[in-house]
């Protein structure tokens, strides 16, 4: 049970129940789909980029608690961030969920810390990373939907 609690942290459950920025974004400058064919997670990510800065971000779609909470938390963290900062967060997050980040202080991670438990569940890394991969590709102005397979 303790490992399960570590995975399904309160923050994750709460964002799953009430995802933030969960809507279509009018006037989005980038729109990209991300999906996980194996389990059917499927989201659309909307970004409004001005002067290389994420001025607004939102998402829609359906999937498991991990993928939805991850998308939701991501949107709350990225608003106002520059593309480079977003890229940096992507890397931190990726290392965190794949277990490559050891001994990092929770202050540095902020809300991302909630996803530290994911690394103990290799089958769920894809769920946690889906929105992040989609975001990164959207920033790169790619138009192919992101698939985690």
């Amino acid at each position, binding site marked *: *049970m303790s*490992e*399960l*609690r570590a*995975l*399904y942290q309160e923050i994750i*459950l709460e964002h799953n*129940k009430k995802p933030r920025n969960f809507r279509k974004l009018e006037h989005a400058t980038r729109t990209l789909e991300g999906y996980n064919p*194996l*389990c*059917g*997670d*499927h989201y659309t990510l909307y970004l409004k980029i001005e002067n290389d800065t994420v001025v607004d971000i939102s998402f829609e779609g*359906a*999937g*498991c*608690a*991990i993928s939805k909470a991850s998308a939701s938390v991501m949107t709350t963290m990225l608003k106002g961030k520059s593309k480079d900062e977003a890229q940096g967060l992507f890397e931190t997050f990726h290392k965190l969920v794949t277990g490559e980040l050891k001994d990092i202080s929770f202050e540095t991670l902020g809300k991302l810390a909630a996803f530290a438990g994911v690394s103990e*569940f290799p*089958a*769920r890394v894809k*769920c946690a990373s889906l929105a992040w991969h989609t975001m990164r590709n959207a920033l790169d102005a790619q138009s192919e939907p992101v698939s985690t397979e």
Partner: protein
Amino acid sequence: MQTYQDILTSKKSGPGFDPDLVRGSFPILNTTVHGKKLVYLDNAATTQKPESVIKALDNYYRQLNSNIHRGVHSLSEKATEAYEGVRDKARQFINAASNMEIIFLRGTTEGINLVAGSYGRSNVGQGDEVLITGLEHHSNIVPWQMLCNQTGAVLKVAPIDDKGEVILSEFERLIGPKTKIVAIAHVSNALGTVNPVKRMVAIAHAHGIPVLLDGAQAVPHFRIDVRDLDCDFYAFSAHKMYGPTGIGILYGKQRILEAMPPYQGGGDMIRSVTFEKTIFNDLPHKFEAGTPSIADTIGIGAAFDFLNGLDWDAVSHYEHELLVYASEVIGAIPGLRIVGTAREKAGVLSFVMDDVHPHDIGTILDREGIAVRTGHHCAQPVMLRFGIPATVRASFALYNTKEEVDELVRGIYTVKEVFH
């Protein structure tokens, strides 16, 4: 032979089947997952293997290994004898008329591809129709779709109702002068529905149309008699009936198989080859090009022996009772909905829960040692029909017990606790 329903009714009074007598034969059932005793409820994906099957594989490589149908040396003769002996067992197991009707190949998927590629390519043309149903596994959809794309034929789908049963009047209505072949799952892997295939075959035959049955999920659960069903093709996989992976069987009526061109070319499927002309071998070798999976064929032979050693109807009845019990106790959990409530079901219990995605349920159950499948079960059109992205699927085998169902119920309450 009786129908599935008859088997179930007739066995109500007979001697029961005790799963504890066979559990000991399955070494993996004694292992643990995350420190918990394994509760294996993913049998529709693949079943576990009894000791006798594992030993048969080992023994083959230790004592018999050599290529078949080739050498004059003793080992090759012995291996050939063992391999062909399994064909006898397979014929008896499904009550085919002749060994020529038993084709060894990789599994259900390859069997269906063989029929679509060989029978389909020679009998289905521009504007013709192929009829399937709304509950098919991708392997009974995609080969037909590919055939239709290649030939300009049209794929028709008989819809299913909210219970997950094929609407027979629609099925009948969709059979017309252009229909060239009908392909139906005997049992649905996503919903558990047992289709009334004997009736469906009769309906198609009344229009002179041959029928392929996908028996992947039926063979593990009840006796199959292909002559009684009167189907033209029947495909199934060893690994879902306690045998090894990589081997399966396609049954086809001799008359039809004889008229079909080979599916693949190579060694073993020929009688003589010159650069000008090849004379193909007789059935069933015509459809077995190249060195087959000999060890796995020996392995499926051991699986047939294992099953023949049991009172098969008693097993069906036991499994049915287990499914009824599971449906009752799991269906009673608040906030949980069973998907697929056909009147006749075998082996499969699919469900969804309010507010918890199947993938999360699967992870939590796994930590409790319970293996279920979550996802679309290679049946995306079924998910679409029910308006859900995925389900949790518990699927049962003869070694599963009521105690394991109770473990699953406890696991589901753990899910609720985590997600409060």
